[in-house]
């Protein structure tokens, strides 16, 4: 026995097996095929949560994605998942769930005290109070925050993984109810590539709860037959537990597949992703998303026991659960009658059907009459009352449609379940997400799809078609149109016979009038989760919040986790009435992704963690650096050795050692990350001439030149050395971080502005390994390494390049120096990078060759006053600001030149690059420190510039800094002050930015 309310027959559950699970600390059992909601209803559980604002007790309302109340936290520790809907949680052995709201317990909730004060807490009350004293909001907010919120964030990182797949298809069919299934079959038979996605575990949609027949067989058998045939098509992909959540531009849709949610944690392969996000580019989309029933709005319509009539049907027919002993139906259309028929079938006592219309449809009237169920036509439920366990009676009243008022009280009816049907709202969410505008149709009293703006069409319930036969016909037609649009000729599918019912139309009833005597006391809920009531909506309108968007935001209508699936249309119509407008004239709100919430992990996919969040680029020599214990710096996507500490060394110890070794003997730097662009073609030099600020037409083969690149705004963008390999062949180097941008920049100018230039660009950054051997002994090391190139200054002068072999490896050797030392930059095929590095290290052993990292590189270049683009520049610095007018040609145009002659760029007191020497030679200024002329306590302090680079120079035995200072070049020798974060004041003298070997004798030696 799995529970008092479980029926002995019917439903799609497996009664032969039991599943044990826990809910709010108690153990229960259910069956395979149950959801958490159905299993608990079967046990007689009625209380599932507390509402957001008033903490009113709430029960199950729906049976699927529309459920606003029954939110649960499922699982433990890292597997804990907040805010799942009990109606969508499939049962598995050992499942453990708690309701998300209610403290200290669901039954005795302290927050329920809000309910007593509800009279002074109308919509928007917080905008009107909590303003005094001025500082108090933070305190109020603390308590408001604590009271708000739903589930808890897990305390541990997620142990599961998620993945993504990209897929194209001819026809994507969303929803596997009757329309979607037959649409899929139609499209499949045409030969089209089809995806059929449905959010539920089983295909069938509403047919899973249906008592009707299709083609003479039970609906579920028909579903099985269709699915079986669909499985035979190789080009058909069937995705269950898969919600189409987003519809973006150009027919791009996202599908969220939940792959292991239904499994106990031990039952799934740990390598299997918990969820998958499908990124779909669909040729055509057929929306068959069905419809969601609306509740009716009356006093007390939120009590546990008040449910959608469609949900009552589902619990009885699909799950074999009678949600109570006695039931009443309250409806304004024919579909509510089905719940009465089903309740009677389940052995419940159906006390009454209350129909706000005077004339129900002939078929349902006949069927319920045959069952002996009393029908109150032209009546309404005006109020619902509760006992200790939720709903226990309802108040029956007669009403007048023309005056919109109650005309007579007919007494109270005892019942445990009240099944509501306020009409069906087509699920137009995806249609709306696609950019289309749904339109109100008074025939169905709901919004229907409007004109398509993308390649999509709606069929069946989501198109306002509710008769089963009509749904099947639309499904076939929709799929035919879609397949034809993709060039497939389909023949169609025979429509099976269905039960035909004579329907009477719905008569909209947006809000049940209140008993005059009850005045404003009534609580008619429109949005259950956010406790937005009909009076809240009217209050908003009265206060001038008349756009539906204002009303939603003022009352929080539709902002719950169900996103207004139940309440939005009722709310819109109630607002319409307050404003004397038709619902369609109030407008609708735009639905946005996601249709139902999607796990962040699934959206992130595999793009997380040290390896995959962003690609990692490593040089060919990387393993050597790792072995030598280097610490790494992220530069762009590259990992660069930062410094190589020996045991017991601090960072400054290591950097000082690396710098001194390079200055005194020889160091070696892995420079492979520098961007390298191979430039070939007869107009290569002309391109360089236009891109760089200096002239390039006279550079001879075998010679190198340093260049500056500006943005068209005149600001320094990149720098590097370019080598002439042949008159029509150059190799450009760029900064590590700027390589891709520079490549794109030149390609763009070539293609869009200078297509007449014959130049070909190839990125060769990864093809070359580059090592810079620097220091007075570098020449000796190259000799020792077996370099076959003459290395003396005469035959191999500074700023030139030679090709030759080192240790048998073909190399390009350049005499360029970023350290200011005699240096040779060796480039080899990256496949030989590690070999050559090893060769150099071996050859250098006699000279104590020292690998140095980016930190030492920075110190060495700062000693020389060489700038680093991006550190000493920030997008607002010109070559002149850096004191580098010598690199700016007067004789030619180049990108950015004109900008150097604007009023502001010609200004004399621009910030200029200078050197700083602190009075105390041991003090190293923080990089970024602001400089002032006269330190002061009052604010603001006028700032003259900032420190861009700052180091302790072991070679000079003191600290040095580079700074950008207003009019700095005119202030040589004067003192300026760094006024630091901690208000410490550090005086420093402004000096020339070149601190070491200003004559450049070492690099040329």
């Amino acid at each position, binding site marked *: 026995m799995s529970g008092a309310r479980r029926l002995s027959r019917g439903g799609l559950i497996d009664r032969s097996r039991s599943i044990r699970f826990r809910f709010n600390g108690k153990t229960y059992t259910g069956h395979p095929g149950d959801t958490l909601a159905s299993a608990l209803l079967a046990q007689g559980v009625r209380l599932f949560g507390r509402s957001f604002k008033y903490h009113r007790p709430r029960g199950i309302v729906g049976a699927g994605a529309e459920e606003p109340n029954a939110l649960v936290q499922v699982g433990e520790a890292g597997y804990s998942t907040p805010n799942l809907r009990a109606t969508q949680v499939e049962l598995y052995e050992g499942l453990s769930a708690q309701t998300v709201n209610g403290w200290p317990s669901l039954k005795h909730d302290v927050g329920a005290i809000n309910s007593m004060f509800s009279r002074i807490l109308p919509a928007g009350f917080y905008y009107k109070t909590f303003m005094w004293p001025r500082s108090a909001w933070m305190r109020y907010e603390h308590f408001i925050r604590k009271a708000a919120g739903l589930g808890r964030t897990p305390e541990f990182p997620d142990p599961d993984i998620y993945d993504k797949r990209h897929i194209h298809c001819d026809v994507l069919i969303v929803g596997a109810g009757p329309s979607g299934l037959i649409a899929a079959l139609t499209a499949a038979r045409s030969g089209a590539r089809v995806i059929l996605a449905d959010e539920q575990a089983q295909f069938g949609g509403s047919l899973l709860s249906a008592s009707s027949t299709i083609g003479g067989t039970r609906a579920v058998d028909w579903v099985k037959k269709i699915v079986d045939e669909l499985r035979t098509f190789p080009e058909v992909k069937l995705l269950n537990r898969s919600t189409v959540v987003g519809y973006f531009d150009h027919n791009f849709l996202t599908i969220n597949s939940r792959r292991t949610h239904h499994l106990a944690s031990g039952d799934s392969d740990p390598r299997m992703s918990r969820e998958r996000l499908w990124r779909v580019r669909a040729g055509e989309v057929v929306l068959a998303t069905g419809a969601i029933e609306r509740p009716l709005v009356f006093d007390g319509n939120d009590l546990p026991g008040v449910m959608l009539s469609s949900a009552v049907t589902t619990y009885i027919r699909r799950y074999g659960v009678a949600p109570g002993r006695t039931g009443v139906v309250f409806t304004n259309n024919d579909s509510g009658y089905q719940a009465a028929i089903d309740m009677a079938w389940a052995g419940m006592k159906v006390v009454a059907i209350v129909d706000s219309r005077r004339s129900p449809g002939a078929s349902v009237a006949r069927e319920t009459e045959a069952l002996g169920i009393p029908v109150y036509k032209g009546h309404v439920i005006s109020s619902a009352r509760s006992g200790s366990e939720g709903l226990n009676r309802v108040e029956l009243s007669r009403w007048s449609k023309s005056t919109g008022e109650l005309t007579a009280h007919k007494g109270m009816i005892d019942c445990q379940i009240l099944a509501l049907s306020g009409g069906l709202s087509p699920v137009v969410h995806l249609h709306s997400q696609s950019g289309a505008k749904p339109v109100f149709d008074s025939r169905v009293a709901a919004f229907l799809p409007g004109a398509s703006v993308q390649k999509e069409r709606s069929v069946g319930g989501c198109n306002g078609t509710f008769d089963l036969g009509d749904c099947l016909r639309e499904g076939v037609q929709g799929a035919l149109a879609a397949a034809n649009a993709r060039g497939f000729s389909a023949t169609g599918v025979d429509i099976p016979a269905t039960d035909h019912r004579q329907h009477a139309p719905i008569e909209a009833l947006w809000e049940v009038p209140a008993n005059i005597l009850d005045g404003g006391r009534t609580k008619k809920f429109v949005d259950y989760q956010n406790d937005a009531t009909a009076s809240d909506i009217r209050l908003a309108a009265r206060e001038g919040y008349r756009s539906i968007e204002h009303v939603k935001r003022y009352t929080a209508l539709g902002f719950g986790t169900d996103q207004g699936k139940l309440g939005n249309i009722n709310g819109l119509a109630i607002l319409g009435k307050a404003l004397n407008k038709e619902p369609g004239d109030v407008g609708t709100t735009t639905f946005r992704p996601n249709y139902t919430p999607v796990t962040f992990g699934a959206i992130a996919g595999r793009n997380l963690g040290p390896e995959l969040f962003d690609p990692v680029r490593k040089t060919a020599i990387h393993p050597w650096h790792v072995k030598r214990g280097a610490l790494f710096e992220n530069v762009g996507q590259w990992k660069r050795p930062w410094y190589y500490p020996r045991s017991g060394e601090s960072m400054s110890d290591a950097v000082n050692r690396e710098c001194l070794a390079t200055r005194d003997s020889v160091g070696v730097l892995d420079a492979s990350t520098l961007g390298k662009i191979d430039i070939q073609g007869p107009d290569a030099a002309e391109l360089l001439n236009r891109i760089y600020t200096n002239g390039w037409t006279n550079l001879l083969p075998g010679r190198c030149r340093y260049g500056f690149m500006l943005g068209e705004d005149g600001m320094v963008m990149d720098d590097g050395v370019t080598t002439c390999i042949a008159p029509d062949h150059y190799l450009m180097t760029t900064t590590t971080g700027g390589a891709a941008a520079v490549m794109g920049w030149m390609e763009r100018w070539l*293609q869009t502005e200078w297509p007449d230039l014959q130049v070909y660009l190839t990125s060769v950054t990864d093809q070359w390994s580059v090592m810079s051997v620097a220091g007075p002994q570098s020449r000796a090391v190259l000799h020792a390494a077996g370099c076959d190139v003459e290395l003396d200054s005469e035959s191999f002068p500074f700023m030139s390049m030679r090709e030759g072999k080192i240790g048998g490896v073909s190399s390009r050797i350049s005499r360029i120096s970023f350290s200011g030392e005699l240096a040779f930059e060796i480039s080899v095929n990256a496949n030989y990078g590690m070999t050559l590095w090893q060769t150099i290290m071996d050859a250098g052993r006699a000279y104590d060759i020292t690998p140095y990292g980016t930190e030492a590189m920075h110190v060495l270049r700062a000693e020389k006053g060489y700038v680093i683009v991006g550190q000493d520049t920030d997008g607002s610095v010109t070559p002149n600001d850096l004191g580098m007018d010598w690199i700016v040609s007067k004789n030619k145009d180049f990108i950015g030149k*004109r900008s150097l002659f604007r009023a502001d760029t010609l200004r004399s007191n621009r910030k200029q690059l200078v050197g700083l020497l602190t009075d105390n030679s041991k003090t190293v200024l923080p990089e970024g420190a602001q400089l002032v002329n006269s330190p002061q306590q009052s604010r603001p302090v006028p700032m003259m510039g900032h420190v861009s680079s700052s180091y302790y120079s072991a070679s000079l035995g003191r600290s040095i800094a580079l700074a950008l200072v207003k009019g700095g070049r005119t202030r040589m020798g004067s003192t300026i002050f760094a006024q630091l974060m901690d208000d410490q004041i550090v005086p420093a003298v402004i000096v020339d930015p070149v601190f070491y070997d200003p004559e450049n004798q070492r690099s040329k030696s």
Partner: protein
Amino acid sequence: MLEIECPWCGSRDQDEFSYGGEAHIVRPLSPENLNDREWGDYLFFRDNKKGQHAEQWCHSAGCRRWFNVIRDTVSYRIVSVYRSGDSPSGDPS
């Protein structure tokens, strides 16, 4: 998520492309002859069209070619794609 028809490679996902802003802004032949206002207009000022917008795209994760697109900046519908130097075709309405 746009799907863009590269004139050389065919339809590809937007993620393969990079955007280059308004098309047909020609770099002045003699910038030195422009006053600050004219140069500023070229540098910074744009039509920023609401509606049909001629713009540059580059198939940066593909053939790396720049080309032009006419796209409706409200509906994001692509009206026409054409190579640099060509004229737009397609329905300009």
